[in-house]
């Protein structure tokens, strides 16, 4: 079976709607098919990756720690759009530090988050076989 390039596009904030959680679950389930998976975060989707989320008082599960498990599922390319961060007053430092262990490099920890500009994000999107939007 030939490997296809899959991109999951996240454009929604984490808790106001169910899209973000649904996307994450589909990414985890889809990882079993061993395809070339990337995940994109743009527009309000960048809010999903912020650190320090604490949902204790709103009665829903805080799923932000799960992004740090994606590396175990061989999902190691998380593209984040720089313009979307800037419009929301965010910088890379406001995001969780998400890493994966490179098995082919003695389990060296490498960053999963790749900050790209809008034009580069368009290139990432144009380079895919399948694009799934949330």
């Amino acid at each position, binding site marked *: 079976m030939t490997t296809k390039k899959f991109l999951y596009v996240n454009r929604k*904030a984490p*808790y106001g709607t169910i899209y973000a959680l649904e996307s994450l679950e589909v990414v985890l389930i889809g990882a079993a098919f061993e395809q070339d998976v990337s995940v994109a975060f743009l527009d309000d989707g960048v809010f999903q990756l*912020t650190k320090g*989320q*604490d*949902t204790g*008082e709103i009665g829903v599960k805080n799923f932000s720690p799960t992004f740090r498990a994606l590396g175990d599922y061989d999902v190691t390319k998380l593209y984040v759009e720089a313009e979307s961060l800037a*419009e*929301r*007053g965010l910088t890379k430092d406001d995001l969780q530090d998400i890493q994966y262990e490179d098995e082919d490099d003695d389990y060296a920890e490498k960053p999963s988050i790749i900050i790209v500009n809008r034009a580069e994000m368009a290139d990432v999107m144009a380079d895919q076989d399948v694009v799934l939007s949330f």
Partner: protein
Amino acid sequence: MSTLHTVNKSPFATQALLSCLNHCKDGDAVLMIEDGVYGGVSGTGMASMVEDKMKSVTLYVLSPDLSARGIDAARLIDGIQGTDYAGFVELVAKHDRTQNWL
């Protein structure tokens, strides 16, 4: 007579906050809840519009929704007040009507 307005959508995703602020009367209060809390953060593309409106209306955010999204209260626009669920109820009771901007 005054109105409590609630906004529950991100200002970057819909026009709800913009439209709400454009329809507020002097002395009204706006409470940002759920994804609406992103509208209270300083240094964003929306902040100056919110700051302008604060001369005539009082702005609140629901703190549990702020914490859920990992936003420190220190990052709010100066003058925006945090409130909890009990404070939400008090705001509803204090105003003559509540209008939700969905």
